[in-house]
């Protein structure tokens, strides 16, 4: 279910770190909880994001949820397709529904993040 090469946050974001670049999205559990996603507000390309700080919002019909950045850095790219097709987040939260890519501020691996195994345990605990 949860790719083992990703890292996860307790706010239900995932991050894939490849060299200096981190790709960020929300988890399958998060999209399930939100329901049909109708709109996302993403950070601006060139803007700064900070680990643990809100950097956008994800909206369903009757709920808004803040998007927290798992990493610190500069936004290199956003998933422009989500503007027209927010349903991608529901369909493929860990793939086509990615949200933004950030150039990492430091190469040190962020230590607050969870592994797939830890995240799954966290979700189980949260929902039980």
């Amino acid at each position, binding site marked *: 279910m949860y790719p083992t090469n990703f890292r996860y946050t307790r706010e239900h974001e995932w991050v894939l770190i490849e060299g200096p670049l981190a790709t960020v999205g929300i988890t399958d559990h998060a999209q399930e909880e939100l329901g049909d996603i109708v*709109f996302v507000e993403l950070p601006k390309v060139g803007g700064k994001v900070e680990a643990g700080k809100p950097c956008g919002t994800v*909206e*369903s*019909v*009757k*709920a*808004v949820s803040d998007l927290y950045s798992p990493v610190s850095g500069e936004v290199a790219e956003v998933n422009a397709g989500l503007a027209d097709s927010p349903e991608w987040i529901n369909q493929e939260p860990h793939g086509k529904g990615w949200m933004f890519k950030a150039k990492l501020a430091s190469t040190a691996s962020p230590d607050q993040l969870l592994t797939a195994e830890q995240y799954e345990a966290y979700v189980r605990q949260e929902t039980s």
Partner: protein
Amino acid sequence: MRYLPKSPEERRDMLRAIGCDSIEQLFSSIPLEARLGRPLRLEPGKSEPEVLAYFRERAAENARDYTCFLGAGAYDHFCPAVVDALISRSEFYTAYTPYQPEISQGTLQAVFEYQTLICQLTGMDVANASLYDGSSALPEAVMMAVRATGRRRAAVARSVHPEYREVLATYLRHQEIKITELPFAESGQLVPEALAAAASDDLAAVVIQSPNFFGVIEEVAAAAEVAHAAGALLIVMVAEPLALGIVRPPLEADIVAGEAQSLGVPLSFGGPYVGFLAAREKYVRSMPGRLVGQTTDAAGERGFCLTLATREQHIRREKATSNICTNQALCALMVTIFLSTYGKQGLRELALQNLAKSHYAAARFRERGARLRFSGPFFNEMVVRGVGGGAGAAEKLQAHKIVGGLELGRFYPELAGDVLVCVTETASRGKIDELVRIYTGP
């Protein structure tokens, strides 16, 4: 009591059913010291004829059968009888907010039509389901511009309705949004140099009103150019939207907001009225208030529902685009029916009649030596110089069953003695002549 559908016997049955000995016991959760130990000191209830008589007496204490030359944000126009007949359908006026779309399609579709009509009238892309009134539409529009630009200053023309500006000041006082006031010129229009001087990189919005409080039509394109060059939005307020039947809409604006009372809503001593707010499509998610959208049901049938609700207070709470919870649905319905009934040609003709009557009045004033304060083009209101001031004119007018224009000294000390005269299609030529004669003396 005639509004209560229960007999004493039924009340006893119900009390028994819930295991209560007395009515008093229903309130046992209210501590004794918080209870009122006496009857309210109000008069005994009145029968329907008595209620009617009370209000007839009050109505008789007001001006009746007067010709009124007051405008200033509240306008009297011929309203087709169908408007009141249709809004009196109790399925419309006794319904709640359309939270259950399956049994609210009437309200929802009517609001969708209202949103469309407001877009067509203003030349904007999207309009909300309405706001309280024109005065509160101003701060809502300014706060919207603040959200859209991330800046916190608004430059507001002094020729915007003074009470709208007072409301703006009240709303913004605790929000750290600054207001710069822009003066008006001899033409009655905004002083372009003052606008240029106010343009800076912290400016969120330039606010003008057209026709402005003095009835003068502003140069919207020029204001837009300065606003946009500074990275600010242009907000155009409209308090007399009938003007848009004949005056080019403010297409260069980013937000057009104002008061739609003039389009079918009774004067009713100042309310309820109906604020409107329309904008360019890209700002839709910064808009305050409700929005109705078109969609389909499972069978593919077209229908309507409230949409983009995540902007609103019940979901986003303190981060909402506004604290507004209602719209003015019934007043918006009046506007929808009024505009549908007059239609494309009718609204134009109505606007043309206003233009003709007000310019007839202006010509009469000039003939009798009075001068207009401002030289700019006007729709159905004008400022006549120096004819007010004394109580004499007002008394004479009243003796002729005329209510004259609005004395401007109250809002603009430098215009003391000037009178804002509104002439709509409802004023007869004879009454206009009388008004001019009394104001300009023997």
